[in-house]
């Protein structure tokens, strides 16, 4: 899923200053799963924002909505009647949802309430960790199902840097595994260490953001 976190309330207050009536919109898909932008979070954030804006001397009316998916037009359409009645929209979907609203409602300012941070999974209750970097050239087949692009702080391809802590954690964060330690453990358990001895050549990053905005065109699915 795509994960994100609320922007700090003071930043939101700053963003919304001057508006009198806003629509706070959540998304019931990824960001609901990561407890940042679902219906529950919409209803939690709205009163917090009201208080903060009032304290700031700028009381505003906040209406709330949560769409099934903010990244698909058929769900976004549901807001067609309501958006023209407010001064601005605050979306707590991922950056894709924010852009969908901004495109659909070009006359109305649409602000991001989240910082979108990663493609991740819930590792345990209350803990989400990065899994994919959308690099466009998947190496999971040769790294025993563990991604070094997303999960190594340096995106290394040929084994761990010298910065692995004594307990196998990454030097950048004592709570994050050195993913190359994990890759090695898995290779060892499978009796397949030889697979890690091959030198992985410089990667082609051109099928990701580095090659320009990504576009996939499937003629077979076109009208």
């Amino acid at each position: 899923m795509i994960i994100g976190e609320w922007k700090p309330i003071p930043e939101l207050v700053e963003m919304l200053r001057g508006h009198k009536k806003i629509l706070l919109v959540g998304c019931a898909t990824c960001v609901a799963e990561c407890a940042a932008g679902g219906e529950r979070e919409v209803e939690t954030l709205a009163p917090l924002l009201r208080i903060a804006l009032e304290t700031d001397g700028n009381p505003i009316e906040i209406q709330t909505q949560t769409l099934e998916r903010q990244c698909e037009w058929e769900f976004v359409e549901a807001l067609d009647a309501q958006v023209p009645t407010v001064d601005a929209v605050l979306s707590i979907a991922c950056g894709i949802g924010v852009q969908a609203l901004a495109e659909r409602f070009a006359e109305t300012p649409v602000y991001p309430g989240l910082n979108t941070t990663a493609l991740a999974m819930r590792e345990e209750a209350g803990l989400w960790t990065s899994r994919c970097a959308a690099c466009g050239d998947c190496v999971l087949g040769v790294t025993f199902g563990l991604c070094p692009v997303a999960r190594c702080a340096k995106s290394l391809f040929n084994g761990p840097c010298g910065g692995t802590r004594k307990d196998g954690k990454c030097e950048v964060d004592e709570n994050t595994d050195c993913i190359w330690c994990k890759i090695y453990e898995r290779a060892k358990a499978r009796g397949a260490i030889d697979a890690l001895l091959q030198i992985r050549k410089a990667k082609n990053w051109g099928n990701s953001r580095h090659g320009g905005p990504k576009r996939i065109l499937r003629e077979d699915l076109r009208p």
Partner: protein
Amino acid sequence: MTTTTLKANSRLERVLAGGHFALTVEVGPPRGANAEPVRKKAAILKGLADGYNVTDNQTAVVRMSSIAAAKLLLEAGCEPIMQMTCRDRNRIAMQSDLLGAAALGLRNCLCLSGDHQGQGASGKLKGHPGAKNVFDVDSIQLVAIVKRMRDEGLQEGGDALTEPVPFFIGAVWTPLSPPEDFRVLRLAKKIEAGADFIQTQAIYDVERFAAAFAKARDMGLAERAAILPGIIVPASAGMLKYMNKNVPGVEVPEALIKRMEQAKDPKAEGARIAVELIEAMRAIPGVKGVHLQAIEAEERLPEIIKAAGLSPRPEVD
């Protein structure tokens, strides 16, 4: 001298080719634009080592560029080992800098991943934790790129260079970081990719290093590349404790920390320990030299180098 064909004809390469025990030291560039601190260090260390490592924004703190500082050292008569990390430049910038460095007369290049920018000076300075890192290629891929530029006269993308780039290629080895049994295999990959010489993370635990080195030697790696164990001169018991706890891959035996704690003159004791470590490394069959550092205390090195019997350096010109 030797009949071996030299790849880069750096002093370090000639010393190793001549079968001599090599000595490299480290010169950290200043956090300013003044060339004097580099020249001052060069004046202290000139003639005492076969190569002078010039760090590349180590600990992710902005310093004078390793290429510029290396050129200053070269002018001052100290042959530099330019360090190049993968953190700040993509393959285009790195290859361009390699061409420039070669044109300036630099002949040794040490390829590293580089300290993560989130760890600016281990928290002692602000650094630039918000910087975007690059890591377009990793250290092993960089070694392969430099080798291709040198041996095939080709860029990574396949375009031809107008002439090959003569570098004696270095890489690093952290034998005691986990997963320990993979570290020697990763060393093998670096050598397979083209590393001619290897410098290691600081060694204090001689026994553990000797065991790791024996594995490398058994795999033939000590013959394929010259391995130079790293030695950092202890400045105090506190420094050893700090490194043991906080610097990945550095293992300091308790006895050594005690010895520094009990020393009446910790500086002199640190120098004695450094000399003993040099001798211990030299006694390990297959070790081709040492990489000696006294972080921001280069003035301590001449005495240690002399006491270890490593001065004068061999004539290889």
